[in-house]
């Protein structure tokens, strides 16, 4: 059933995708219009990484993109993607508190390690709150996420408004964390990101097997004695670290995007975990690079947003074109399958008509017309005609005289095979499943296309004594439209 709904509705979903593209184009076209296009020398200067600062921003952001894609993959498979959204919002009060503490005790609040530490602390506290609410009350997962997200962020905003009133509270520095300020990355920031990324990568490397089991079957993992809760906490701690290093590059409102979009895009290309990880890291890396590149050329555009838009573009492309689960791929597969099913129905109807009305000399000589076949099945309007035309094109049928068709050798072979599958299954149902002969036709209809050779062998063995030794057993029930014919 599901296959058929997908077939029917795919064009509509394509419209949505196209709409997404249109929106993206709209944004980019406007951007190009309003901000003068950069000259070739500008492009070369940025591309060749001549500025020392650009180099750091490039490396830092791309590195963050790759690590985000890596931990995001595990989070996606654990079905906790939105957890990262809550954690990232929960970092804001930590930033505010760290700034105030820094101002009071050290005289300066805008030290990146201190702010990052504060962000990590409240991020982890927010995560703990979600787990606590979920386990201690009847509040469900999604509501717990929304509660912690909004409350922590509200508290953060209140703290930021207080910080803005402090004499040294140059809040512009803190706002950089909300919207991201990749261009202001310094060498020490770069090293910080590099160190954190390296640590996250190492943890993922050493816990690869553990995370895999956790993501694919957590209850199995629990039953085998794995410390599931501890692993979950480790995963979320990793998410917090990546969130914190992404704050400066893309800002806390969009850092979550880099942990959701690249992994979701990568899933369209492969079914394997290791490949998903690699592709997702690649997507994150490329998004970071292209985003920084674009924002270096158009300095007024927010870099974080551009990075996310690049990854969104990658996502939409993957969703449509992806080689393993993409929409086009699945649409094509379903179409092929339904065509084969319809062709096999046609061939079986033809065979059964010939069985009843044909001269029974040679399958290939008997001719039939469209109307002869029509009465054998309930065809939807036009279905019979299109199936027939397609079968003609692909040499399953021949047409010597206009309107009069006959089976070709290839068609006859296929027809014999399908009819044999169909009737073996019918006989099996009658004999072993105790289903009335009048009712087996429909069941066999669905199964005849997918009977594997080994199942066929089993069926043959089971039905040894029946008339299965013949190449084609007789139909166990009256055939449609065969009222005058002489079947069993």
């Amino acid at each position, binding site marked *: 059933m599901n296959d058929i709904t997908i077939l029917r509705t795919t064009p509509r979903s394509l419209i949505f995708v196209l709409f997404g593209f249109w929106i993206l184009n709209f944004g980019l076209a406007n951007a190009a219009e309003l901000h003068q296009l950069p000259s070739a020398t500008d492009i070369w200067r940025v591309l060749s990484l001549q500025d020392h600062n650009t180099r750091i921003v490039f490396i830092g952001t791309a590195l963050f993109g790759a690590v985000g894609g890596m931990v995001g993959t595990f989070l996606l498979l654990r079905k*906790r993607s939105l957890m990262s959204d809550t954690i990232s919002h929960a970092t804001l009060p930590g930033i505010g508190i760290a700034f105030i503490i820094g101002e009071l005790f050290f005289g300066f609040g805008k030290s990146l390690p201190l702010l990052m530490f504060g962000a990590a602390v409240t991020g982890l506290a927010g995560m703990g709150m979600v787990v606590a609410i979920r386990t201690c009350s009847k509040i469900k997962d999604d509501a717990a996420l929304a509660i912690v997200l909004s409350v922590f962020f509200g508290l953060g905003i209140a703290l930021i408004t207080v910080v803005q009133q402090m004499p040294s509270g140059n809040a512009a520095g803190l706002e950089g964390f909300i919207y991201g300020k990749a261009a202001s990355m310094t060498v020490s920031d770069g090293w910080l990101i590099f160190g954190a990324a390296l640590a996250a990568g190492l943890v993922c490397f050493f816990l690869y097997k553990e995370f895999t089991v956790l993501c694919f079957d957590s209850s199995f993992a629990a039953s085998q004695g794995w410390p599931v809760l501890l692993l979950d906490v480790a995963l979320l701690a990793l998410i917090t670290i990546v969130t914190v290093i992404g704050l400066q590059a893309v800002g806390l409102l969009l850092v979550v995007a880099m942990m959701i979009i690249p992994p979701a895009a990568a899933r369209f290309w492969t079914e394997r975990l290791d490949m998903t990880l690699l592709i997702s890291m690649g997507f994150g890396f490329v998004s970071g690079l292209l985003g920084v590149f674009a924002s270096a050329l158009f300095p007024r555009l927010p870099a974080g947003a551009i990075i996310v838009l690049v990854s969104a573009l990658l996502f939409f492309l993957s969703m449509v074109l992806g080689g393993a689960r993409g929409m086009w791929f699945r649409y094509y597969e379903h179409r092929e399958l339904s065509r084969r099913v319809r062709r096999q129905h046609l061939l079986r109807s033809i065979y059964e008509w010939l069985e009843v009305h044909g001269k029974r000399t040679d399958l290939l000589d008997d001719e039939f017309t469209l109307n002869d076949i029509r009465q054998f099945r309930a065809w939807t309007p036009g279905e019979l005609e299109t199936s027939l035309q397609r079968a003609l094109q692909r040499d399953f049928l021949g047409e010597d005289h206009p309107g009069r068709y006959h089976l070709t050798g290839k068609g006859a072979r296929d027809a014999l095979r399908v009819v044999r599958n169909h009737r073996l299954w019918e006989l099996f149902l009658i004999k072993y499943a105790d289903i009335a002969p009048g009712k087996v036709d429909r069941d066999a209809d669905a199964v005849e296309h997918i009977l594997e050779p080994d199942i066929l062998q089993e069926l043959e063995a089971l039905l040894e004594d029946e008339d299965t030794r013949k190449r084609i057993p007789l139909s166990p029930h009256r055939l449609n439209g065969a009222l005058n014919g002489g079947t069993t």
Partner: protein
Amino acid sequence: MEWTALDGWIVATGTLLAMACALPGTFLILNRQSMLGDGISHAVLPGIAIAFLLTGSRDWTFMLAGAVVAGVLTGVISNAIEKYGKVESGAALGVTFCSLFALGLVLIRIAADQVEIHADCVLYGTLETAVIDGVINSGVPQVAWQAIALLLANALLVLLFYKELKIASFDPDLAESQGIPAGRIKFGITMMTAITTVMAFEAVGSILIIALLIVPASTAILLSHRLPVILVLACGIGMLTAFVGHWLAMAPFPWLMRELSGLESLSSASSTGMMAAACGLIFILVLITQRVLQRQMPSGQPSTSS
């Protein structure tokens, strides 16, 4: 700090908005779509920006229309990604609203060349300034009228479709068998959330909207099993949070900050931010009280935790 008429208006508007948000919020939670409010409130940004860019005016109606379209699209697009892309629902929502929000940030930056607008007012809201402007100009601030209209509309919708909303939220299959289109009701809740978010965010900002939508209703759900009681309680708790939040922002919170930092210049914190924090405070208090009471009389009512 003295309590003035302005504070009265701020609390009154906050109260009305909190009540208006609690109604759709309850049904969002029951439908397990809480994060949809988060998604919509982020994703209205490009709708507003596009409305600006297309019309070139700051007309309130265009802004509303653009934002509602964007809000509804968030639900539709994330459903489409989930269904046709076979992506898990949370991730599908995340992909959608992150992309739309990023697009919105870019468009706002572009629109800023033409119209005076900043992403901040979308995020934080400007309840205080909106109220002050309104009181100075006409006596009753426009945001208060907006809040009243929103509350009446939401209350009317809930009353009219009470039975449908109830059945569709608790048992979609039963609803379908009774001839109630559960899917369309769900879409209606999305619409209601989108419109509420958009109407309210000018005043309180997109983040407080999530707090007002979800937290009072969650607190009410902790306290009762019956839908009418939950709805009334949610509205009541919403009122309380508006008052407590503003009071906290005015007096105790800045005092705490002054005491800690020794800086006399700190006067007040963002009311909207503190309202969100107050929502959380009340939720936590109720949760803890309930746990303590449950532990004291274990033989009483059956445990509600699961």
